[in-house]
């Protein structure tokens, strides 16, 4: 994993992208950034990230990282894992199968927890570790076994841990070093690594302190040169932080600037503790501290451990202890008379030795010239804060870069602590800007048609009207609390038409006088020939202006000429998403209205009328004296006559049935059958009747 500093980690790491921005900053001064020491947020993050599952950590390595982080941060309320972890420490140490790496991690945890381990057990482990040193082939073997021996030395004074053949061990480790200052993990692995170099220095300092006899001085001399060589490959960020990068990424995962730099710092401090006179430039030490502080609060436990552990090594190292100058607030308000406060502490946030802080220079952003001040800050021992009661003279509202210097009075401290010369800090001084003489006027040519005073910032209700031959002028004056002209970053006038079309104009200034004149004749096209009411908004704002405002000024009624045919159409306005997705209006089908019908009574009355002729017919027949004397008397003709009339009746009934329910096909079929029958019986009946009447005539 590759780690790089990241309070603004992304910004930092993305060097390419940010170079342009940084160049602009760098033109003012080379290193402008504040690094805050370790704070409460690290403590809460540590408790969050190192949370044991069911009373224990997943591995002894993690347990060590957690316990070490808690110890350095001074967290009292840490989770209680001692019993569980001690059990697994004792288990690991007693197991014959555990290798030097397991033993090393177990001993590390033991160093913090002080579990009960007998001296006999330790003696056994020492002999195992010594064997491991003899058989070691790779750097990590040496690192773990020597580290283990060193830990036993610290934990028990009764066990003999001294190495007889320290010189030989040292030489075989030294064989892994490369010409560029990096080291290899093992002789069979040709790739060199910065992290390996750090581990190697730590191992070597372990060998030196474990050596039974004195070590060859020339060997130590070459090792010191190796360290210096390693520092040639150090890389730098623009904010003044230094780090080591490891290009080589191997299977073990955590390889990146953070782990590499951490390993180097550990190795460096360990080496410095065993031998005197290691000359590392103090800005490099400070830069390394800045690198670790610059990450902010890391989001995973490994990174947090690297950060906290390394910073604690830096704090306790013998080369030079970095001091961090930080400002609790870099935004100072003139209105509330904020004091300039500076805090100096070590990287872990503990208090610094007696010293004085001087404000050396104040750069005003935008101009190169700086006023030299050399002012002492007043120390308040209660809060451990250096403060300046009044801001230096000539500091009006605006953006500045303050340059501080830490001065240590004691020469002993001067040697011990790294202050890094001048620390430059960007400061915003804010205040209330006075707005005067605000006026809005409609001009015809150069003659003022109507003019209105405006109350800014405040409520205004302009109601102007103008046509395309007139002009609208808006003017106001801005002055700083010290009476100087003020130029805000944002001075925008916005006109908004009823339809939502917006136009924005920058209000230009000359000195403290701001004025904008809108000549509508030239703007007609830009306004898309849209006549009607325009709302006017004025926005004046700046980072250092405490009373930045966005005020609606009222409206102006514009009377613009009609749009010619080829005029551009105003841009479409975004539809309101809430309306766009709402339900649609319901639609109900309108059915065709049924035809109008007369009332039933009328129909029935006509039915009665229609039946009247039939009744009249019956009455007429009775009146005429109808008889059936002609009906055949003999049996056969009478039967045929009955069948004939029955047939007619059947046809008529069929018609009634057709009306009531039958369909045409059944009706025609039945009608056909009855018809044939009727033809036969009809013929017989009619011929009989005809013959009867013929007989009668002839008779």
């Amino acid at each position, binding site marked *: 994993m590759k780690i790089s500093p990241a309070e603004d980690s992304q910004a930092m790491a993305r060097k390419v992208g940010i170079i342009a921005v940084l160049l602009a900053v760098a033109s003012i001064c080379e290193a402008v950034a504040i690094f805050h020491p370790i704070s409460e947020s690290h403590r809460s993050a540590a408790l969050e990230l190192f949370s044991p599952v069911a009373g224990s950590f997943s591995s002894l390595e993690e347990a060590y990282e957690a316990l070490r982080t808690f110890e350095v941060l001074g967290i009292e309320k840490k989770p209680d894992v001692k019993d569980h972890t001690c059990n697994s420490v004792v288990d690991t140490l007693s197991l014959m199968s555990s290798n030097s790496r397991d033993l090393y991690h177990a001993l590390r945890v033991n160093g913090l927890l002080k579990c009960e381990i007998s001296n006999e057990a330790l003696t056994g482990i020492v002999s195992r570790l010594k064997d491991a040193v003899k058989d070691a082939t790779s750097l990590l073997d040496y690192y773990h076994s020597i580290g283990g021996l060193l830990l036993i030395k610290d934990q028990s004074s009764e066990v003999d841990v001294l190495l007889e053949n320290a010189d030989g061990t040292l030489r075989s480790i030294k064989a892994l070093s490369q010409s560029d200052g990096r080291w290899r993990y093992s002789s069979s692995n040709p790739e060199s690594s910065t992290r390996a170099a750090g581990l190697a220095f730590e191992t070597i300092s372990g060998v030196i302190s474990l050596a039974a006899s004195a070590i060859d001085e020339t060997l130590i001399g070459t090792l010191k040169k190796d360290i210096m060589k390693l520092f040639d490959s150090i890389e730098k960020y623009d904010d003044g932080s230094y780090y080591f990068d490891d290009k080589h990424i191997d299977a073990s995962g955590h390889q990146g600037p953070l782990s590499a730099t951490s390993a180097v710092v550990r190795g460096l401090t360990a080496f410095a503790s065993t031998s005197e006179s290691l000359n590392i430039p103090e800005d490099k030490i400070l830069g390394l501290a800045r690198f670790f502080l610059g990450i902010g609060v890391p*989001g995973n436990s490994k990174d947090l451990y690297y950060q906290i552990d390394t910073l604690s090594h830096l704090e306790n190292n013998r080369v030079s202890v970095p001091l961090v100058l930080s400002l609790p607030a870099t*935004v100072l308000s003139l209105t509330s008379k904020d004091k300039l406060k500076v805090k100096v502490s070590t990287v872990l946030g503990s208090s610094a030795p007696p010293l004085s802080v001087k404000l050396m220079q104040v750069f005003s952003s935008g101009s190169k010239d700086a006023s030299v001040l050399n002012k002492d800050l007043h120390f308040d021992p209660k809060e451990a804060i250096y403060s300046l009661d009044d801001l230096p003279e000539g500091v009006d509202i605006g953006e500045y870069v303050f340059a501080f210097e830490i001065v240590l009075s004691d020469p002993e401290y001067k040697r011990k602590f790294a202050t890094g010369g001048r620390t430059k800090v960007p400061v915003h001084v804010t205040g209330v800007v006075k707005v005067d003489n605000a006026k809005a006027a409609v001009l015809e040519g150069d003659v003022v048609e109507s003019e209105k005073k405006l109350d800014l910032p405040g409520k205004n209700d302009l109601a102007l009207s103008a046509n395309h031959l007139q002009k609208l002028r808006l003017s106001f004056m801005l002055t700083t609390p010290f009476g100087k002209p003020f130029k805000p970053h*944002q001075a925008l006038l916005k006109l908004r038409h009823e339809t939502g079309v*917006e136009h924005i104009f920058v209000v230009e200034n000359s000195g403290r006088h701001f004025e904008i004149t809108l000549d509508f004749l030239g703007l007609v096209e830009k306004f898309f020939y849209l006549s009607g009411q325009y709302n006017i908004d004025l926005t004046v704002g700046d980072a250092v202006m405490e009373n*930045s405002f966005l005020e609606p000024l009222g409206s102006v009624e514009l009377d613009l000429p009609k749009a010619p045919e080829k005029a551009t159409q105003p841009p479409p306005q975004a*539809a309101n998403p809430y309306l766009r997705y709402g339900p649609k209006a319901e639609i*109900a089908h309108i059915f065709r209205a049924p035809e109008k019908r007369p009332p039933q009574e009328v129909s029935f009355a006509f039915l009665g009328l229609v039946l009247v002729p039939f009744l009249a017919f019956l009455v007429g027949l009775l009146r005429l004296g109808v008889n059936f004397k002609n009906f055949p008397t003999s049996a056969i003709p009478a039967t045929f006559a009955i069948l004939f009339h029955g047939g007619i009746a059947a046809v008529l009934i069929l018609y009634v049935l057709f009306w009531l329910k039958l369909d045409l096909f059944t009706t025609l079929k039945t009608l056909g059958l009855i018809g044939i029958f009727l033809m036969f019986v009809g013929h017989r009946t009619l011929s009989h009747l005809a013959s009867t009447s013929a007989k009668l005539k002839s008779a």
Partner: protein
Amino acid sequence: MRNDSKRRSNYTESTNATNLNAELERNERNHLVNVQSLLTLLTSDPNLKNPKARRILVNMAKFTIATIFVASISLLLALTRSFSVENPTDRRILVLLDDLALKSSHSIFFTSLQARGFELDFKLSDDPKIALQRYGQYLYDGLVLFSPTTERFGGSLDVAAVLDFVDSGKDLIVAADATASDLIRNIAAECGVDFDEDPSAVVIDHGSYAVSGTEGDHTLIAADDFIQSDVLLGSTKIEAPVLFKGIGHSVNPANSLVLKVLSASPSAYSANPKSKLSTPPSLFGSSISLVSVVQARNNARVLFSGSLDLFSNKFFKSPVQKAGSSNKYEKSGNQQFVTELSKWVFHERGHLKAVNVRHHRVGETDEPAIYRINDDLEYSVEIYEWSGSSWEPYVASDVQVQFYMMSPYVLKTMSTDKKGLFHASFKVPDVYGVFQFKVEYQRLGYTSLSLAKQIPVRPFRHNEYERFIPTAFPYYGASFSTMAGFFIFSFVYLYSK
């Protein structure tokens, strides 16, 4: 012959494997090559007469086939856990970073995703091994681009590949910042989101910046102009403002698929804070969108943020106070905002499905093949919403059904029983033709439902008209009295003397 059939079976095995291939790593592919070369050797080499050697080779081939088979089964199991119609939440997400430090500085966001069951695959954006798909199958359901500076992705990934990914219904989160590259801008522009073209411009707001002792340039914005939508931002109101530091964008007004989720305040503008503002800013006021989402027509969801820091641990945890307001919040709204929005993007919310579309005449239960004009019918559909783990009944009062032929003849709001069933009853219009039952449900943030079912409508049959109309009784009376008269007259005429 035997070898031939073996080879064929091997071929089918391998196509299975290749079709499904999502995690088949190089060694399996080597196996494949081995098998193929082995079998070619077996079939083509006539000199290979030694039966023992032959047997060994065949056994080796069998073994390799078995390995592939096991691999493909494990693959199938892996695939069943991924995005599907029945289980629409994404599972596998590729996270592209331009610096692995982001993994640590944005760990809360990533951990919350992992806690919700997502498998995150972190890669550097210039990693040459990046591949979204292999053998035509997508390896991921979602893509998170936290690599604003990347000018070129590694591997085969480019703008077109990212857009293809979205076009296939997958989801995307893109975070830019002040250093956003053209690549990121192009991806955004293709989705209807236009970041400010000025590369040095950031969003500045002197009206609603976040009050801070150390950030004095008002580029750290406390934004609280959220879209009003429970489905996008969850039902719990986001109380604290969201911290934003980055670039603004505008959304294309003609594009109805883009929604502004977080808008800037009216006093905001997009400009370079280091230089004097001489021309009017191209983006200003509340038309600046800070965070936008796109829901494509295929329900792919895309999130664009102009700020990468919005997702960072630092912003998640920092207290916030908006300028001009006395309310101080212990924690910014970022975590809630990002978590809720990511739930939406990865289809844990707002994903609807419609099942059991039914219609029948009132009083019947079977679905007819055709309706007659003026029939009374009932239409019902069940709609469920995916909650991330199960399908929950969808409750809404604005689902509408249309009875549609060229244009809607009937459009009715359906009533719901609050258990997912929506139904409406109405009368078929007195117009015959081929109609459709249509449910076009498009709501802010929800996936769109578009159901259509064709159904013909016929007019009355000849015998379905009214039979005995009283108005016609005089005519009937006339006919039948004539008929009766004829019957009587026939007697009178024939037999009267």
